[in-house]
Each structure stands twice: as C-alpha cells, then as structure tokens.
C-alpha cells in the first residue's frame, strides 16, 4: 500500500543554532503530520536527533545526515521522491534546496519543488533582484547604493539624504558599519570601511522607524490573506529576533494596519508565493512613509510565533497548500466548523521576549543590534500589556520576578538605555527614579505607548510599596495582579511571604481566570483546549474536566543547556500519559516548541513555569499528579516547592530529588553506598577555598552556589587564578558559599541514562564521551555503544547505578555521570530527571526512555529491557554558534557553550563521527591544516596522526614551537607567524584568504600572551568560517576517521536500517 503513495522529501534545519532554533521542529513536525493526512509518504533529512520530527511515528523515513547538497542528492537518488519541500527547515533547507535546483539535480531526478517556486525564492533571497522587482512594482524599499570609493559614497549620500547608514559588504563585528549624521562622519566611517572591504553600501537611515511584520498565506488559486501582524517594541536597527515583539500591533491605526496589509498581499501575489511567508516593514512613526525590508519565502521564527499567538496552524496549512490544497477547502483547526480562509481575531495580547546567554561566554559583547544573538524566547499571553510584559520577564528565568526587580540605585542613564538585554529593566528603573517618559522614548526610539504602559506598572509599584499588607483590600490585590505582579513581588513589597499573599488573595477570591485561544475572539464556539490565564476576566471559558488527568511541565525558555531535547521529552511524556488513559495537561511558555502545539496533548496551558502559576493550574485542574522530571532543570527546581504545597508529584519524590540536588546530602549518600566522588568542599571564605585547593591539588573547579546569571563555573589551575575567580564569583560569604571540586583530568567521562521503577532499574543506557573530563557534557561528543569502556568499569557503573536508584527510590528517569580512570569510577553528577541525551539514547537503542519512565511513574508494569545489541555506532556531536557571538573565545570549557546537537549513524565510529561533525556545518579538509599545539603532551599525542596526514598528502602549517617539534620528528611542515607578530607569512593573512581548511588549536594551560594569541587564532578561524578543533581527543578521533574514510565511504542509509537487535542468549 505504502508503495503507491507519493513520496515527498522534507528538508529539516539541522542542529539548533543562534538564529535558527526550535521553531523549525515545530514547522517540520506540523508539515509531516499534514502531508501524511493528505496521503503522502514523507522522507525527512535532518540530523537533529533531539527533535520530535525525527521521532518514531513521524516521517516514514528519516536520514540523520547533513542537510547539504552532497548528501541530499544521494538521498534523492535512493528514494526518488515525487516532490521536495524547502520551506520548513529554515535558511539551511532553503539554501540547500536552491543549490539542488541550481545544479540541475532536482530536474535530473524529476523532483518537483512544492509550494513557492524556486524563482520566487531566488527573488526574495537576492537583495538586488528583490529591490529591482519591488521598485518596478512601485513599492517603497530602502534607498541604497553600493559604492567603491569615498567620493562615490559622499555623492550617493547627498542624493539619499543624511543621516545615512553605511553597511560594509564584508563586516566583522559591525566593523565599518554605522550611521553617518553628516558629510564628515561619513568620510570617517567610509575611510575605515574601505580598509577592510572594497565595497560599501550607502543606505537611507531608517533607525527609529517602527518595525512591523505580517505573516501571509496564499494558495495556488490566489486566495491570499494575512494571519497575523506583529510590532517590534524595539525600533528598526534591532534584529526582530532580538526584539521584544507584540501581536497584534499596538500603535498602528486602522489606516496603517490595512495599508501595510494590502501591500503585503500585493507583494506576495506578485512574487507568486504558495504557502506561507513573512514580510517585514519599516514604518515612519511621524508620517505615512513605509519601506519593505524583506520577505522570507519560508516558515520562520516569526511564523512559529504567529502560529502560537493566534492558534492558526501556519505550518500545517502551508504544507497542505504546497501540495495543492486551497485555503477555502481546509478547515479552521480550532473551530472545526469554519474554513482556514479567515484572519484570526485576537481578544488578548501576546508578547515575545528573547533570552540571551552572554554570561556563559567570556568576552561576549552584550550590545544587541542587527545581528541575532539571543538563544531562545518566551511568549506571554494576557489581556493587557503590563500583564504580558511581567509574565514574560518571569518566563525568561533570569532570576527576575517582574520588570521592577532589583532596581539599581545609581546608574548612567545614557549607558542604561543603550540596547542590551537589560534595557527594558533600565527603562522601568529610570521611570521609577523620575526620568520623563518622553526623554526615554527619545533616547531609545521606543514608541511612547510602550514607555507609558511601563510607566503605569512603575506607578502602581510605587503605590503598592506604600501599602501595608493588612490594609490591602480586594480591589488593590486584583489591580496588582492585573498588572502582572507576582505573589512573590507583592510579598517583598509588603514584607510578607509569597504564600501569605497567595492565601490572602485566594481569600479575596482573586484567582486567574482561564481563557481559550480560539482564533475568532469568541465569535464562534471553539473546540481546542489551548489556554492561558489572565486576571482581566471575571469568569473562565472552560470548566476543568472531571476525567483523570496529569500535568506535564515543559522546559520553558530555550537557553544554553536546555533546549529542544527537553521538548522531545515533554511531548513524549504527554502522549504516553494519554495512552495510559490520562488527560495530558501540558504547561509551557516557549513558542519555539512542539509541546505548545495544542494538538500534541489534551490540554495546553501556555503559561509561566513558576510555582505560583503551576499551583494555580494544579488547584484548578485537580490532576492525579505532576510530572516534573521531563522538562529539564526548570520543572525539576519546582519539585520541592510543589511538594511543600502538598502537590502530588508523579514518580520520584521531592525528598529524593532534594537528596540528589543537595550537594551535602548527596555526598553523604554516596559515602554510605560506597561510591567514589571527586573531593569537594563548600567554602564560606577565600581562606577555606585556598586551603582545600592546596590539600587536593590543582586544578580545582569553582562553582558559585548562589547562581545568579552572571557568575559562572571556572577551573583554576593555580592559586593566583583561584583568587581571581573567587573575587569574580561575587563575594564569598557564609550566605553565599562557593563549591570547590577537585578537577579530575585525564579521565574518561561516561553518561548513564536510565529509568527506574520503585527503585529498581528497568533500563540503563551507557554512552561515552570522546573528550576527556573537563568538557561540559553538553558540549561533549557522545558515542553509543561505548567503544572504550572496560568490562570491569561497566560492571562497576551498573552496580553504582543500581544502588543509587534503590537508595533514592527512583521511579522515572535519571541521568548519572561518571568519571572513569583505569578501572575506578567516580560519580560527578546525578539528576533525577530526563537528561539532554534522552532523545539520542532512545532513538539509538529503540527504547523510548520517556515512555518507560511514564509507565514507571504510574506504577505500571514495565517490561524489563536488556541491553539491545547495536550492530552500528551512533555519534552525537555539539553545534556551536560562536560566529554569532562576537568577541567570545570559541573554546570548550566547563561551562556549556553549544546551542544544539546532531547525531548520525555509521557502521563504525569513524563513519558515524564524520557524518555527525559534517552535520554541524564542518567541512573535511582538502589540503591545508594549521596546527598549533600547546604543551608537550598535546604535541606528543598527535605526532603519529600528523605523520599519517603528511604522508597522505596534506599540507601542514604550524606555529613556531609546533613547527620545530614536528620538523625534529621528520614531519614536513611550514611555519606561520603568530597573529600578533605582524610578520608574513602570518596566520591572519592565511585565515583571511581562506588558505587554511582546518585549524587544530590545542591550548595548554598557560597565561599571558600565548593564551591571547590562541584566543585570537580561534576567533579568526570562527570569523572566517574555518573548521576548528580545540580538543585533543577530538583531534585524534578526527584524524583517525580521516585516514579510514573518504566522503564516498559515508553511506547514505535511513534510520530504519540501523536497527537494534535483541540479544540472543546462547542456550
């Protein structure tokens, strides 16, 4: 039967990276479901192992391979699909598709591009074509011209009119770009720019204009409409991914709204788009002038947001339109009665807030602008701007409880109002201390409406401050809640506990009402259970069902260390609860997720993952219990608080979670179980810290236990470093101790992902890290099955896991990390929750660890799983986004830095490894490799590999010491001067001219110039997009793989051909 269905090839987006994140799991997953509904077979290429779209039961075949021309062509040859979809995997899929088309591959194999035609995509992708096209149609676009000399620049600027924006065609970290107010400023900027680039762009300056977006859908019959418009709170000049965004627009009149809407539709019709697209405008806040900024002829981050904001399933509809369906024949998924051809009417307001993680990086530039740097986002739904703004701030999980938290007493106003992640709080503080709203609006370019709304919050905050708790009546309480103040903030204002506020407000019957997102502003009855909470209401839309239910807490905002993998876990948990006869209630606030698709669970609360709100929902829904162990650390952190409020947790008890989380308790537990752990101490003073370090010896790991974002983990290799870090880690005091751990080097790191039922392990999967201890497990390369774990070690690990599970009475998921050296093992971490690697190990071993966990939590019988035999190897590799984060040092440390991950399969580790790193946009070196090996050990360990490479014909370049060392061992190589050495041949020149294919930079723990030089080399490699390896074990594995495999050896096989086998026990 399946053989007769037409095949459609869907390109995914690969690993999550800054600028291209979880939203494409949402769009791909919806597309797969929609295409299957339409009767197609779906073939997916996507190496992102943590996604829902690459799960069992989604696509008919999945290829865990790079979304790149070479591999996709091979997939096409193997599958011979009828059509291909390019619009659901972000820029990666679009670029890959365009290349396949350009090279005639699609034509050759008669693959039809479904949806928007290639010519239309090309029009939107090429700046010049796009500009010419729109100009011909009389639409306004930013006036700009490319020039090659300062004289030309001045001439063009005169015709464009000052101020002008100077853009350097080739810009590094914004070098050579900027606003020139007059002739003289332009002369300076242009001169600087021409030092780096032969050509610059002189553009009219639209800084301060409003930035407005529309999401447009169109079908092949030319029915066309806009699903949603959005307004950026931050004006033009700040990337929309970096902006706070509201939907619908708040400051546009009917005339403005519909003029831009009409233009959107006209442009999209002219372009001939079929499916979904996004169009961005600049709108002059003081006239009717507008400019079209760009069109994205594909699903985007904004379309995911629009989809969640309106309840209109854009990706599913786009997929159906691509295969020829019409908007008028599709149904509105929410009402099930009205057609998909309608524009959602919102009776609430939505606010998106980005999340940045600059503190995870050294030297990161905190300014935000035209480059995207944020790593995640949240979306708040409510019925007033203050309500959604304060909700969103809490959803970010950055230690703030509202816009008014932590008011700094003194600050430099000008500095505070520069665009950084902290600006919005600085605006609130400034208003609090009396700065006028108009001055703030002028300095920031943010529309006065938003500033005034924040001012309303500030004013209420002031009046609330003057109240005493005893004098607070119902009206005051309700108003505070309508303005989005949390119980915690109110408690702090009134000097009582959050619990006391909560009890009092419940006594007043001030509880949030539950509202439904229905796309039609209540005009028609709706069938979804897509809900949010608001205080601007007197009654709820929906009475809670009496059926037995369970709540799953999702992962919340994506950040470094917690992203799509936990969404996979949450979605699977919800579905497994449903299969076990419970209504699944999902709580999450992240618009980039699949878990917030309202058809993935029985009930969806798009809500804060705070104790207050989870209790509100729990009290309302009265479920059988809450699952806190599948959404990563966010829900895990709520466990104790929830259980103190007598909430029933499903699975492992809160006390056990606390025993695992609390360093002292856990350490004592390990001692009683006879399991080793690295030496550690909780130091309450610098003296204690230094004493510990000299006892156990350096290096030591320092971890501030009072972790506010901003203070990070560090490794100190000597006393001086230790003192520096201690000073930086905030004042160490009895209240804020730091934890010091003996940092074990040269040890193997092993991850165990397991499921237990009532303290008994049901399933445990052991995977090993390629990198030695010292690299954060989220940045490590994982191998499954392990290749180098001794039988004896394995046995010890099994025993330790069994004992820990029993002692903590685990029911559900857990993850334990071990160090192994020789044959001894130590536990370094234990989490009684699903880990980052759960999707990976589940997909590789064929055991869905989340499904098993849910069964175990519910006390159901779980068939005991034995280790399946894996006749293949799978490798999970991290994806970094250093190129987006100007100034950061792209080196692996104890703090996690990767933003995503991929996995690939192979017949052996080398094949799997190469496919996997290629999936992270790594390129295999063709000829020239630059090696810079710090320290004797790094040099010695790589000698053999470099020898082999040289004999294979690779050209080796080296830094001074490495050069001499290699020469002495008869390995031919040439020397490059260091970047700082201003002498040719220089590393910088070679990198700039891309004369190097791969950089191996292994730093030794040194100080001073050497380190600075290494940092510069790594940074340049990243800036010029040259593959970089900074870890010894990784370099060794890479070189060995390179010796054993050529590109043509990397087999193109679907996931289904890598199937685990049950172990045959000999009789």
């Amino acid at each position, binding site marked *: 039967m399946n053989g007769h269905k037409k095949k459609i090839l869907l390109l995914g987006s690969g690993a999550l990276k800054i600028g291209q994140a979880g939203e494409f799991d949402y769009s791909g997953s919806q597309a797969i479901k929609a295409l299957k509904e339409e009767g197609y077979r779906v073939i997916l290429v996507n190496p992102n192992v943590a996604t829902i779209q690459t799960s069992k039961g989604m696509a008919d075949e999945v290829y865990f391979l790079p979304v790149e021309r070479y591999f996709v062509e091979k997939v096409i040859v193997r599958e011979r699909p009828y059509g291909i979809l390019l619009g659901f995997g972000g820029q990666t899929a679009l670029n890959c598709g365009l290349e396949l088309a350009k090279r005639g591959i699609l034509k050759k194999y008669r693959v039809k591009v479904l949806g928007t035609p290639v010519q239309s995509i090309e029009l939107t992708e090429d700046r010049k074509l796009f500009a010419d096209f729109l100009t011909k149609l009389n639409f306004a676009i930013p006036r700009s011209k490319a020039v090659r000399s300062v004289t030309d620049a001045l001439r063009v600027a005169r015709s464009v009119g000052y101020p002008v924006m100077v853009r350097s065609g080739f810009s590094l970290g914004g070098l050579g770009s900027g606003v020139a107010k007059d002739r003289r400023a332009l002369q300076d900027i242009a001169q600087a720019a021409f030092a780096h680039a032969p050509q610059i762009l002189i553009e009219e300056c639209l800084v301060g204009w409003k930035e407005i977006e529309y999401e447009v859908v169109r079908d092949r019959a030319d029915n066309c409409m806009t699903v949603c418009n959005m307004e950026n709170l931050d004006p033009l000049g700040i990337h929309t991914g970096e902006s706070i965004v509201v939907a619908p627009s708040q400051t546009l009149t009917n005339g403005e709204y519909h003029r831009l809407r009409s233009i959107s539709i006209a442009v999209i019709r002219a372009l001939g788009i079929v499916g979904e697209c996004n169009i961005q405008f600049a709108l002059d806040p003081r006239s009717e002038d507008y400019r079209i900024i760009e069109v994205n002829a594909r699903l985007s981050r904004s379309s995911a947001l629009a989809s969640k904001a309106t309840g209109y399933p854009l990706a599913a509809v786009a997929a159906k339109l691509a295969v020829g369906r019409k908007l008028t024949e599709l149904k509105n998924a929410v009402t099930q009665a*009205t057609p998909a*051809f*309608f524009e959602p009417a919102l009776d609430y*307001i939505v606010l998106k807030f980005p999340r940045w993680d600059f503190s995870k990086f050294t030297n990161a530039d905190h300014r935000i602008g035209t480059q995207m740097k944020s790593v995640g986002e949240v979306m708040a739904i409510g019925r007033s701007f203050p309500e959604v703004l304060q909700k969103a701030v809490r959803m970010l999980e950055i230690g703030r409880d509202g816009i008014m938290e932590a008011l700094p007493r003194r600050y430099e106003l000008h500095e505070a109002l520069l665009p950084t992640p902290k600006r919005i709080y600085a605006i609130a503080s400034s208003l609090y201390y009396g700065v006028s709203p108009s001055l703030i609006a002028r300095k920031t370019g943010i529309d006065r409406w938003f500033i005034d709304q924040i001012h309303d919050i500030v004013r209420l905050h002031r009046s609330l401050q003057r109240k005493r708790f005893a004098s607070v009546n119902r009206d005051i309480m309700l108003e505070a809640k309508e303005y989005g103040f949390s119980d915690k903030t109110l408690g702090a204002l009134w000097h009582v506990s959050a619990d006391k506020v909560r009890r009092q407000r419940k006594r007043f019957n001030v509880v949030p009402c539950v509202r439904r997102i229905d796309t039609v502003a209540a005009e028609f009855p709706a069938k979804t259970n897509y809900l949010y909470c608001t205080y601007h209401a007197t009654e709820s839309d929906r009475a809670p069902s009496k059926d037995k239910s369970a709540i799953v807490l999702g992962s919340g905002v994506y950040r470094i260390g917690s992203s799509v993998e936990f969404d996979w876990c949450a979605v699977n948990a919800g579905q497994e609860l449903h299969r076990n006869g419970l209504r699944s209630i999902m709580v999450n606030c992240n618009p980039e997720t699949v878990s917030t698709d309202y058809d993935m669970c029985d009930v969806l609360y798009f809500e804060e993952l705070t104790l207050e709100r989870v209790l509100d929902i729990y009290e309302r829904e009265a479920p059988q219990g809450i699952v806190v162990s599948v959404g990563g650390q966010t829900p895990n952190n709520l466990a104790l608080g929830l259980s103190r409020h007598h909430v029933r947790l499903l699975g492992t008890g809160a006390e056990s979670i606390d025993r695992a989380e609390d360093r002292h308790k856990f350490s004592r537990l390990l001692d009683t179980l006879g399991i080793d752990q690295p030496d550690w101490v909780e130091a309450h003073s610098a003296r204690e810290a230094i004493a510990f370090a000299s006892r156990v010896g350096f290096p030591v790991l320092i971890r501030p236990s009072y972790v506010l974002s901003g203070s990070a983990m560090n490794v100190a290799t000597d006393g001086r470093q230790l003192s520096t870090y201690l000073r930086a880690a905030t004042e160490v005091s009895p209240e804020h101790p730091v934890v010091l751990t003996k940092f074990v080097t040269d040890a193997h790191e092993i991850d165990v992902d397991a499921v237990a039922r009532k303290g008994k392990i049901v399933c445990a999967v052991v995977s090993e890290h390629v990198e030695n201890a010292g690299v954060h497990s989220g940045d490590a390369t994982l191998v499954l099955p392990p290749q180098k774990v001794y039988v004896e070690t394995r046995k010890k690990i099994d025993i330790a896991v069994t004992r820990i599970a029993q002692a903590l009475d685990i029911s559900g998921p857990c993850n334990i990390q071990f160090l192994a050296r020789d044959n001894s093992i130590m536990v370094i971490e234990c989490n009684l929750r699903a880990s980052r690697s759960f999707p990976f190990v589940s997909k590789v071993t064929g055991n869905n660890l989340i499904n098993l966990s849910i069964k175990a939590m519910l006390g159901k019988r779980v068939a005991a799983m034995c280790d399946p035999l894996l006749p293949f190897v799978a490798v999970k590799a991290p994806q970094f986004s250093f190129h987006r984060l100007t100034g950061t040092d792209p080196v692996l440390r104890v703090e996690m830095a990767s933003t995503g991950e991929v996995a690939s399969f192979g017949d052996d580790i080398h094949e799997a490894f190469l496919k996997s790193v290629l999936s992270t946009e790594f390129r295999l070196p063709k000829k020239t490799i630059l090696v810079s090996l710090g320290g004797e050990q790094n040099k010695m360990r790589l000698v053999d590999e470099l020898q082999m490479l040289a004999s294979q014909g690779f050209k080796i370049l080296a830094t001074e010491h490495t050069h001499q060392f290699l020469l002495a061992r008869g390995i031919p190589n040439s020397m490059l001067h260091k970047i700082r050495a201003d002498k040719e041949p220089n590393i910088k020149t070679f990198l700039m001219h891309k004369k190097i294919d791969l950089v191996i930079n292994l730093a030794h723990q040194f100080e001073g110039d050497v380190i600075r030089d290494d940092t510069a080399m790594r940074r340049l490699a990243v800036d010029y997009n040259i593959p970089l390896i900074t870890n010894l074990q990784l370099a060794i594995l890479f070189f060995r793989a390179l010796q054993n495999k050529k590109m043509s050896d990397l087999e193109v096989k679907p996931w289904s051909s890598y199937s685990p086998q049950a172990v045959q026990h000999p009789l």
Partner: protein
Amino acid sequence: MPRRRLSKQPIRAKGALVLEDGTRFIGQVFGYPVASAGEVVFTTGMVGYPESLTDPSYTGQLMVMTYPLAGNYGVEPISKNPSRPQQHFESSRIHASALIVSSLTMHPSHYRSARTLDSWLHDERIIGLSGIDTRALTQRLREHGTMLGKIVVDNEIPWYDPNKENLVDKVSIHRPLRYRGSGKRVAVVDCGVKHGILRELISRSCDILRVPWDYPISSLKGIDGVVVSNGPGDPMMAEKTVYELKRLIARKVPVWGICLGHQLLALALGATTYKLPYGHRGHNQPVEDVLTRHAYITSQNHGFAVRESTLPRSAAVWFRNLNDGTHEGFKHTSLPVRGVQFHPEACPGPRDTEFLFDEFMKLL
C-alpha cells in the same frame, strides 16, 4: 464606592452594563457619564475604533470591543468642513450609543492624535465603560443572541430597542448634498452612509449627489448610476427607499447596494430579510465569489441578512459567507443591479474588495 485605581490618576465612577437577561457587568465609567440604553453588539476588529464609532450603522447600539485594549493611538481631529467627506472617520460624529471595553488607554501615542478616546467620548456626550470582561460578555451575546442592554450609572433608565425605530431617518441627511467631480454622475442614497463610500467614489472622479433616504430618486434625471448606502437597523423600516428602488430598477439605471443598501435592493427585488442571531461585526469575515470561487477577507457590520432562498432567480448569488454560508451578495442576470452585504470601502477593515468600486464604474 467607586473602585480605586491605584495606577491611573482619574478615579472613575462605577457603572454597570445590564443585559435583558438580567446579567450585570460592573466597570468604570469613562467618556460622558450619563446612562445609555440600546442593543448590545460586539465587534471583533482589532483596530479602527474611530471608524467604527463614527459608522452610522452603529446607531442605537452599545458597541463591545472584543480586542481588550482601546484608545492606543488616540483620536485625530475631526474635520469641520461639511462639503468634503471625513478622511479618517466614517461620519462627523460618534453614532454608537456607548463603547464597552476591557482596558482603556489613557496615554495614546500617534503623531496625528489630538485627544484621548476618553475625552473624545466625553466631548461627544457618549458614555464608555471599561474594566469589563468583554470576552465573557461576547460569549453571552453569542449564546443568547444580540440583547438589549443599558449602562446605568446612578439611576435606572428604560430599555430601548433601536430596531423598532426608523433609524435610517435619524442618520440620513435631510437635503441633497453635492460633491463635485469631473467623472460619472453618481447618486448616493444616504441611509447612514459611511464616508469611506464617498471617498472611494471621489477617488474615481465621480460627481456625487448625496440624497436623503426618502428622496424621489427614481425621478432624478441625468445620473449614470446609484449607490445605496449602508445604514442602521431593520431594512423593513426604510419602505420609502424600497419603493424608489423598485422604480429605479425598472428604469434600468445601474444600482449598487452596500450592506443595508444591499438588503433594500433585495427587498425591492422581492426577497425577504431576517435578523441574524448576533450579527457579523468584524474585519475577518471570509466571503467567496461563487462564480469565480475566489475568496476575500471582508469588513462587515450587519445584524440583518437577506434570505437567499427568497431572491428571484434573476438575482444570481454572487457572494456567500464562508463561515456560516449566509448570503453576502447578488448580481442581477439581466439588469445592472447588484448588491454586497460586506463593506468594500473597508474603513475599518481590509481593503480586499475595493476593486468592486472599479467594477461598479464599468457599469456606468
């Protein structure tokens, strides 16, 4: 005791919206604090409160906005020049009897704004009520159908059913008004015409004669075509217009009816009308051209509809509502007579069907 608002300066009086079924919604009074009664209707448009409030079709109605924030971009100055249509309003004054919202913005922001929504309502002596759970209210109206209601402040007032009155007579002009143009001569029957219709005709250079609803239009000489405008209330009240339209149709003059005008034309052709349970008021109503199968998003504001089965065969169905299948327009098979239930002039709302004005011009 008025509810104290800590955050906002003015302390407002409490007011209550009372519905026919006895439900009360308590909120804060804004605008002009004098009680008002009428029919309670909701609109789902997210922008366009200045246009909606000045739309004469809302006469006698208490308008509920489902979008929770009102007044964000303030109100621009209203032109005092009667010889030209308003540019950004649909008439020169507020026609709705009251405005009911969830939150009222006290600090509007727009470069053309001259006053707040609050002060505009005050100046026009219209009451507003904020702090209302407009979604709960809308759901009630959806389930029970449109209801009579009143906003009371201090003293009780009687109910008022606008549909029992000839509202058209109240909002129409009383003597003809000319907007000179160089093009076709078009008479506009003012049943409560939105200025958007006039603007569209003016932009097509029409020489316009705007006439009262009961004007003997069938005896007008030298006109190229007639547009019958939108307007408030029950179409059955405008019998005189229907009578004139019958004669006009017989003269084979091109006639185009919009909204109420469309209903009146249908009546003139022998069809009947009925009251919808809670009407169509919003900017997202999908209609399909049944002849081309092309669909459009339209702006709508009507409580009555044409019963499609009663239309003569000569009046072929042109548009249908994709949400509920109701009648949205007809095109006469032999005469230059057509009608649309929605608002091609938009304002507020989408402009997808503006091209219908061009099509009308082709008939002349």
